[in-house]
């Protein structure tokens, strides 16, 4: 949640660039409701059905995070994907270890580099 808190604190910098932030986990809707209340400027996605995580190919990573958890595991590999206003993928980042997360400044730098028009 530290990561989401940092993104929430910097949401105005993203807004200036006409960029919205979607925070996606494999939790169900009831579980993410408090998360949405805590971070009102993020769009929190409850992807318990894995409609998005599977499309993004994240389920394969579950085995690595929690060996033995298989595709029914309850966590996704931390990944950041930048999508421009036409729905085209501009940048995909996955850390080499799950302790690592991007800071808001690093995400903003990636936005400026890969989506200069915002």
């Amino acid at each position, binding site marked *: 949640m530290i990561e989401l808190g940092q993104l929430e604190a910097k949401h105005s910098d993203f807004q200036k660039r*006409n960029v919205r932030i979607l925070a996606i986990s494999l939790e169900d809707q009831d579980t993410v409701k408090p998360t949405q209340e805590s971070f009102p400027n993020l769009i929190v996605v409850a992807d318990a059905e894995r409609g998005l995580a599977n499309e993004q190919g994240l389920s394969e990573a579950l085995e690595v995070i929690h060996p033995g958890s298989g595709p029914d595991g309850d966590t996704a590999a931390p990944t950041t994907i930048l999508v421009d206003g036409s729905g085209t993928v501009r940048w995909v980042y996955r850390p080499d270890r799950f302790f690592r997360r991007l800071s808001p400044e690093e995400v903003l730098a990636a936005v400026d580099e890969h989506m200069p028009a915002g």
Partner: protein
Amino acid sequence: MTTASVTSPAKIRPRGRGLFWAGIGLCLLGIALTVVQYNLLGWLMVPWYSPILATLGAGLLLYAVVQRRSVSRIIGLCLVAALAGFQWYMLGFMAKLPDYQGPARVGQKLPPFQTTLADGRQLTERELQDGTASVLVFYRGRW
């Protein structure tokens, strides 16, 4: 008449005692710095320094055991060495993530998907084609 002077014997510190506590301290320092890094500073990076400090601590404890063998020192050495080993395993192997192999390809449209927002509304790839750019952050959940 003579007076007898009574002097207390000088305290002799066991050899290697300072090394023992320095080793324990280094190990605990790594853990404390990790807590500070994540919870107070919010720096979300891999705390490689923690296993390094624990390994250095184990080295000091080993030296303390060589200087003077005792049950407490040997137990301390075993615990710190085990903790250092666990940290190396955790950061070196368990925490490792595979490269992204999913269908989202740079330069291509986001593949079709359907998922649910926190308020129950549906979200598909079409909502992300409205002219506003998006950052998709996949996080690991509440814990």
